[in-house]
């Protein structure tokens, strides 16, 4: 048995105006991965490849140790997948949808479904077409969660939700943390949601994975260092610096492999280090993207 819930190796997919390039991704079982990228970065395409809805031009996709898309029926039996574009049947109510999904998944948990119904404040009898966008997303999430899947794949689960609904959904995702056998991959362009509950974080931009690491390493390794230089002469950055901004004798440097030695090295050069600030995931993501894009232009 493989310990990886998801494994993509050298996956490529070509479209007319977009290419997914050499995607390598591993998600160990029991972990939560946040998949972050701008709109159109390739998040949904990657997720479609993982779900076997699309065939890669080259490379290998394996989910729960099974090859995709060949084993899609077996895999989808154990995976709860929900995406932004999915719609339920407007002329039917949630109760009808629950009966339909329940008939397909033998592990359906009625008690859990009832709890979710209460916590999400959803009405069983009301037709789906009368649901607000938030209610619609929550209804779909209920249908996915109560199947008790081993792997949850959620494409933009909180996009378009109002703050109240977003909190409800985030709280529900947090409750999943309690179960160590469950793996979650969720994509978002909202870094605040991702930052809180993810163990692993993967950044994707323009069809390529630009960084993947565990969250604590991300937050530890990336720092913004505030410097005071001895002269207005342009600063020669030290260590693995990915961004330098200087105005007169004040400089701000973003470093992606921070350790104390960097500070010492600056001090040796007679540079005053005012602070080494933590960065939010959003700042790290943006710095990362800008750095890569600048590199592509060169």
């Amino acid at each position: 048995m493989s310990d990886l819930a998801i494994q993509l190796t050298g996956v490529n997919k070509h479209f007319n105006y977009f290419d997914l390039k050499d995607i390598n991704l591993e998600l160990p079982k029991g972990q939560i991965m946040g998949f972050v990228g701008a709109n159109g970065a390739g998040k949904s395409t990657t997720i479609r490849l993982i779900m076997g809805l699309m065939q890669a031009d080259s490379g290998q996709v394996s989910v729960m140790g099974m090859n995709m898309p060949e084993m899609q029926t077996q895999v989808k039996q154990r995976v709860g997948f929900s995406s932004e574009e999915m719609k339920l049947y407007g002329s039917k109510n949630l109760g009808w949808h629950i009966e339909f999904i329940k008939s397909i998944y033998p592990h359906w948990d009625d008690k859990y479904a009832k709890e979710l119904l209460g916590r999400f404040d959803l009405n069983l009898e009301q037709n789906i077409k009368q649901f607000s966008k938030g209610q619609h997303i929550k209804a779909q999430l209920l249908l996915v969660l109560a199947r008790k899947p081993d792997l949850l794949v959620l494409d933009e689960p909180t996009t378009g939700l109002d703050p109240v609904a977003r909190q409800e959904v985030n709280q529900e995702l947090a409750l999943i943390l309690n179960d160590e056998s469950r793996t979650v991959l969720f994509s978002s362009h909202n870094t605040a949601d991702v930052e809180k509950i993810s163990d692993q974080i993967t950044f994707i931009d323009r069809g390529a994975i630009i960084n993947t690491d565990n969250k604590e390493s991300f937050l530890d390794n990336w720092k913004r260092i505030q410097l005071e230089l001895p002269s207005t002469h342009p600063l020669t950055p030290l260590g693995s610096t990915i961004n330098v901004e200087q105005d007169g004798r004040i400089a701000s440097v973003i470093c992606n492999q921070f350790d104390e030695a960097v500070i010492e090295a600056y001090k040796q050069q007679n540079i005053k280090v005012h602070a080494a600030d933590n960065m939010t995931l959003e700042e790290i993501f943006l710095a990362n993207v800008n750095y890569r894009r600048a590199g592509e232009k060169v």
Partner: protein
Amino acid sequence: MNIPMIKALVKKDWMLYRRYIVAYSVLGIAATFLMIAPSVVAYYIGQVLLVTVLIGASAHISISSVVTEKKEDQLSFIMGLPLNVTDYVISKTLGVLAIYSVCWVVIVATLVFAIDISGLSDGLLPMAIVCSLEILVATALLLSIGILSGSEPITIVSMVVLNLFFNVFLFSMARIPDIGNNLWGDVAVFSPTVFKIIAVEIVLIVSITLGTIGIKSRQQCFM
């Protein structure tokens, strides 16, 4: 092939369309009764209504269950369930055809029974059966076009063409002496020609359906 899944999909479509199937059946039965009423005007109104109901139901169920479901992204929801393209296409060809056939069978059976017991000449029977089967062939074809093209405009244009063709078919059948000459006779004449046409129609339904399953199944992924 995942048979329980196919059954669940067909059951789902049945639940979605059953109230329409009931409504179409009631309308069809009403049309049949108009036809046997002792009035020529009522007969013609009934006949037009009957054909309209059969063709309308066919177009509604095929387009809605295949093309609209895709357009409104309910197919995206279905794709995430444990099934592959083959399971899906079987549920949409055999399944939807079976669902449509429920009202088709009710209406055609009523029609045959009504012609038999009423004052209408029994000679109409072969024509009625041949034409009803043509609508079933058209339904299979429309489903096939919807599934293979996935396009709303193409499917709607095909529906219009198929409707026009039905009128051509009607006139062509009436001009076949074996059928046309016996229309107003007291006896239903099932000549070898009639049987041949019925056989061709059945073969067409089967081959269109199997062909669609065969072509679409070669596709491994939904997208």
